[in-house]
């Protein structure tokens, strides 16, 4: 039985979902292009290489599972059709992914609590920086978020058409080919199903449609031609390589890992510190009012969302990094929480009738909601260019008896294009040094003026783009990050570079006898 609102919602469900999708697309499109990470650049380069292979008739180019496969396929597709604009199309695809993901969040919340819940869930998601940040970069994981939510939407449907089963199985296979975390998520979803559903005798059951999705999905995964003709070699590699690979060292809250495994809270804290307290408190308020734990047993969707939340907490710990094998779990966690808290937030709209003591409550409520939305979303529009990469809301370090969060470096190595534009405006053309491939991409996309980048490496007297060193060695751990920081110069007083800075050449010195030059 669905909750019956006090006044009918003015839009039909389809119109509401369409409106959510359009508003999400408009919002993230307004935010614009932010830049790319080394992973994003590698994805675009692989797309170009594979597209060239396809032109020469080499279909094997499509069968390599190097990065996030589904993103690589999209990059190959756009590179084959329009090589010069592939990067721009991939950005537009990310915008579409975020719009679709928001739509799926709305659709699931609609299923859980009605149209007001759908609206509340979409608003909560769109106010969270980790959610918005997906769209502005060449983030291969945006597609994983969309596919995962689409799969969940099908998986948790009360009844599912045979075509839906086929679609879910295809999504599952594609997720498996793209991201090893999909297997862990599938295991958690099945466990949630088994724990929730009971047959008449009290035994555990798995619905037939779910069984079919799993069987067909696994069959499709195994049928991937890239695994054949040497499955004994290639199949174990898919699972073992990411699990056994000694990944790059990680700096988290002022410590480096390994040697130790990062704390279990790494997944949770990563997105808590990136999300506005205004959103977090709204979520907690919604959870308090909705009390989703009351209907976990009966609501398949709620159980699946809890499984998703659990995955977003556990997988970063398992993968030893804030992102689980290349996929930021923040967005998935926010999606799960937004849907779970939405019925509680929607309940606030029904309070006037029960509220006898506070006649002005409705007015203040609207102002408060508007204020929360404005405060949450303002940093995305008016914050520094690395607002999505930096730890914007550090929790008090005393709470965790550890070093302050700002001692940690930016979460991703995205080179913000707006930072380069500001540096150009303040200091003239920049020598991009070893990051020329990235700056060339920005210029080719039209996101950065060609005049902002010096044409040749020989221009040593120009401001130079550098990667900031991150974290030094200790008694039991190695240094992390760019070590070659010796270059003389003053760091330009610009905010928002994240991992990067611009080093201004030092003024010519007339006396070479610095005190540190050791005399014989």
């Amino acid at each position, binding site marked *: 039985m669905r909750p019956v609102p006090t006044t009918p919602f003015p839009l039909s469900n389809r119109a509401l979902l369409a409106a959510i999708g359009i508003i999400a697309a408009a919002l993230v499109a307004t935010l614009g292009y932010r830049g790319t990470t080394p992973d994003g650049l590698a994805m675009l380069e692989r797309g170009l290489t594979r597209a060239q292979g396809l032109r020469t008739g080499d279909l094997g180019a499509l069968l390599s599972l190097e990065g996030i496969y589904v993103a690589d396929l999209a990059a190959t597709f756009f590179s084959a059709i329009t090589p010069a604009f592939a990067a721009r199309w991939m950005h537009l695809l990310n915008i579409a992914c975020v719009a679709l993901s928001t739509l799926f969040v709305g659709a699931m919340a609609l299923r859980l609590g009605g149209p007001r819940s759908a609206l509340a869930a979409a608003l909560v998601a769109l106010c969270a920086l980790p959610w918005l940040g997906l769209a502005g970069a060449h983030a291969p994981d945006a597609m994983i978020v969309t596919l995962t939510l689409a799969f969940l939407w099908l998986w948790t449907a009360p009844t599912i058409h045979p075509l839906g089963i086929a679609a879910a199985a295809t999504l599952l296979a594609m997720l498996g080919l793209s991201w090893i975390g999909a297997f862990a998520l599938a295991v958690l979803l099945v466990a949630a199903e088994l724990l929730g559903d009971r047959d008449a005798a009290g035994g555990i059951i798995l619905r037939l449609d779910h069984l079919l999705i799993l069987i067909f999905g696994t069959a499709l995964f195994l049928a991937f031609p890239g695994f054949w003709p040497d499955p004994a070699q290639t199949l174990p590699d898919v699972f073992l390589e990411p699990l056994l690979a000694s990944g790059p060292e990680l700096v988290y809250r002022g410590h480096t890992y390994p040697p130790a495994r990062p704390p279990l809270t790494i997944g949770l804290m990563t997105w808590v510190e990136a999300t506005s307290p205004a959103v977090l*408190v709204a979520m907690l*308020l919604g959870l308090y009012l909705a009390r989703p734990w009351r209907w976990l047993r009966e609501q398949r969707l709620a159980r699946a969302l809890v499984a998703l939340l659990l995955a977003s907490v556990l997988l970063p710990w398992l993968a030893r990094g804030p992102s689980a094998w290349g996929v930021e779990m923040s967005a998935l966690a926010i999606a799960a929480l937004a849907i779970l808290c939405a019925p509680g937030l929607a309940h606030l709209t029904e309070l006037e009738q029960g509220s006898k003591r506070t006649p002005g409550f409705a007015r203040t409520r609207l102002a408060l909601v508007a204020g929360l939305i404005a405060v949450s979303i303002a940093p995305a529009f008016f914050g520094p260019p690395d607002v999505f990469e930096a730890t914007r809301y550090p929790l008090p370090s005393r709470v965790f008896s550890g070093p302050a969060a700002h001692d940690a470096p930016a979460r991703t190595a995205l080179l913000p294009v707006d930072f380069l534009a500001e540096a150009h405006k303040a200091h003239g053309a920049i020598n991009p040094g070893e990051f020329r491939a990235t700056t060339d991409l920005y210029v080719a996309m039209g996101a950065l003026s060609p005049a902002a980048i010096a044409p040749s490496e020989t221009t040593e007297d120009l401001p130079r783009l550098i990667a900031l060193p991150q974290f030094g060695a200790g*008694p039991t751990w190695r240094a992390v990050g760019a070590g070659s920081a010796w270059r003389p110069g003053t760091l330009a007083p610009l905010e928002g570079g994240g991992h990067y800075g611009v080093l201004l050449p030092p003024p010519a010195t007339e006396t070479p006898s610095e005190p540190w030059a050791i005399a014989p």
Partner: protein
Amino acid sequence: MSTKPPQRSSGSVIIALVVAAAGLVMALVFPRSDAPALPAEVAAVVAEHPAPILLVTHHVAYRALRTHPDLASRPVALLSSWPPSSLVLSYRDDSERFADAGMTRVSGQDGWAIWEPAKLNALPIFDLARVETLDAQGQATPCPRDDAGFARCGEPDWMRPGPRQVEVDGERVTCNWAHPLPGRTLRIAYPEMPTRDDQGRTLTLLTGLRDSSVGTGVPVEVSVTWGEAQLHHTHRDRRGWQALPLPDDADTAALTLDIFATNPGRRHFCYRFEYR
């Protein structure tokens, strides 16, 4: 089963909304902290200290140093090996580990601390080096640093120059791995450095091959540019270290090593420096 929330009294909801308003205030008053600046007293100690290289513990310390106009020309590197070999600037770091490493706190204020090792090392540090490869036409391609500070001249591990533990002449020592590359010259360029240490000893380049790789008969060629001087060093296919003393005509000089082998297969080459 309904997902409709339980009917709560409006009073408790108002309290919850007040908490939400507190969240809004938190969002406003907890902005990201700005990079802390170096206190004048600490900056003065750094400026007057004779250490040739200043090591920083993380990007906060690097940022503070490189935004200080008086320290713009000081060589700065990330602390890349333990125990530290030069002066270290730290910010809000655990002081115990520096004390355990036998370091002395020279100055400190507002969470900043300067740590001095028992003995200052003036040897060239790999972290200061610019690493690139040269093709047959002399076209240079820079090797970006990976997350652990190694220079990524190729994807395989052996194509990443950097400090490693290598067994040379039966002894495991830390030296700079610099495996010659097929068809390319590996160039490692250090910035200007003192040619002698404080005892007047001159810098010496020591080259070696991993013991297990000796025996192919192929030498490793090293062209050395040391200030104005051009030197050539051939590392023969033998166990042990082979030395090239560097002349000390000037007080300071920049050092560039061009490393090449006709057949680089199994040339597990590494080098280090000593003052002799």
